[in-house]
């Protein structure tokens, strides 16, 4: 995709390093993400994928290197700061409050209020439910029980709620750490199709997976990490499973 290579990168990581004492979890790593592009991160267990996205999303302070957002250097001391700049991270677990509705989860920590009887501030549950319905509709999930706690929904549906939250708050970069792990095949498909929609909406996606089939189904490029260093970068259209596996295990 030549047109894409010319667009300015949304996110650029330059020579990023993260050391835990003597462990060099990430070393001199560079990559870019452009608007409407899905970049897969692959690598063996312990290769440094999670460390990389935590360094990008403000969970860890990088030991060295820089992060540029639309060309501007940024540094986040908390995930909250990264989120305010439009970088949303979606974790497989631990992302939702199970006892709350979809709307309440989308608005968790930023709940809209209204005035009851003209003076009493109360949670605006109706606004939350309406936004939930619209957002989930945009992701082609049509939910009838907007007041049900999300514990009633399946793994893929819950993943969709987490993605819906990022979409509602207009995240421009979505980072997903193994979003399809622990999902059944139909649910994996659903998440993959969600990622296609995010791409169509012009957002940038960083997608971590151990499943090469998923990676080939959804990504534009693949970046392979091996023991904290970039072992290679390929366009999906110009590579195959064998080559990627070789990059991962090294040769």
């Amino acid at each position, binding site marked *: 995709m030549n047109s894409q290579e010319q667009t300015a990168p949304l996110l650029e990581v330059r020579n990023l390093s993260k050391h835990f004492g003597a462990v060099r979890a990430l070393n001199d790593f560079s990559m870019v993400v452009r608007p409407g592009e899905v970049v897969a991160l692959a690598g063996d267990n312990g290769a440094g994928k999670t460390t990389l996205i935590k360094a990008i999303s403000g969970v860890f302070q990088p030991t060295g290197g820089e992060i540029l957002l639309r060309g501007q250097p940024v540094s986040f001391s908390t995930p*909250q700061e990264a989120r305010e700049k439009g970088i949303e991270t979606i974790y497989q677990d631990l992302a939702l*409050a199970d006892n709350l509705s979809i709307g309440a989860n989308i608005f*968790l920590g930023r709940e809209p209020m209204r005035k*009851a009887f003209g003076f*009493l501030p109360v949670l605006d549950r109706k606004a939350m439910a309406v936004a939930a319905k619209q957002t989930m509709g945009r992701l082609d999930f049509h939910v009838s029980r907007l007041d049900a706690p999300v514990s009633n929904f*399946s793994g893929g549906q819950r993943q969709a709620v987490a993605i819906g939250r990022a979409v509602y708050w207009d995240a421009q970069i979505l980072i997903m750490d193994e979003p399809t792990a622990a999902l059944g095949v139909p649910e994996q498909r659903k998440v993959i199709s969600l990622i296609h929609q995010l791409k169509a909406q012009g957002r940038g996606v960083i997608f971590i997976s151990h499943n090469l089939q998923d990676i080939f189904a959804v990504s534009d490029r693949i970046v392979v990490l091996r023991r904290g260093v970039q072992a290679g970068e390929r366009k999906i259209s110009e590579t195959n499973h064998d080559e990627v596996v070789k990059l991962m295990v090294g040769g």
Partner: protein
Amino acid sequence: MTSTSSSGGTHVAPQADHGDPARTWIARIADGRAWLFLAGLIICFEVWSRLAFGATFVLNPFNVQSIAIFAVAPLLLATGQTFVIISGGIDLSLGFIMGLAAVVAAHATNMAGAAIPLPLAMLAGILAAVIVAGVPGVINGLLISRLRIPPFIGTLGMFGVARGAAYLLAGGTTVPVQNSWFALLGNGKFHGVPYLVMITAVFVVVMHYILSQTRFGQHNYAIGANVQAASRAGIDIKGHILRLYVLSAMCAGLGGALYAARFTAGAAQAGEPLLLDSVAAVVIGGASLFGGSGTIFGTVAGALVIAVIQYGLVFVNVEPFWQFIAVGLVIIISVLIDQAQRRFSGARQDE
């Protein structure tokens, strides 16, 4: 007319949820179980009372008043406890914080009464009790949020500290209050409704508002279900936990002040037997001790269930020790209903 047995036709996006659109009747029963218990108990005592003495139980206004008065102090502790339990914690220090507050209310009312008019002295006493009660609440909150001490242990420590402080402050005895206004507050009525019950009712409505309609309440539920999710959503967990334990301690503070008004004396042991009743009221009211669920009105029903059992058994002349057994059974049945409801309603079950 479209055929119902169509094999082709237009594509319809699948429903994203597979739960029942209507809530099942068992879920409704489980939600309102505390109120059903209450109704059942009242009917039992009514029948018993009519058969044994040929007198009414619940239609006797004196009985209703007594039960309501009886429920005031445990309910005040239980409202604070409801917030704490929903957040996934527990506050064991509430009983002695209430005792401490009762002693402070008595001393402060007496001292202020020497300098300012009695009604103002009464208000000063109540205020002092609530503020002093906030101090152990701050310490609980800091221990749990900053030093990461488990709530059970942190508040157990504060249980001892508040207990000792209360007895020291009371000089080992009860502290009588010399203030006619304070006594009136504790024992007076308006159109047959005791002032204590009115104050408690208003307080409970305010707490219901805070829990169900504010961000503080919403975050409390989220933290109880999943602290990590709440923290990732940007909620200030430490600040929340601190405010939470101050709130519950201040509920106990109000309970102590109203105790001092009712008995026109402050006593360190005022809340000692009420701590476990407060936890029981929350659980009977439908909250889970694992956090994440519960309501204030459920807790109100729970507190009334306990008060009706305690008062009713005395009324029908049963040995008082049966109270413990009856309350214990209600707690167990209540938790069983909760589990049954989870199993049948299609909600996610524990493994």
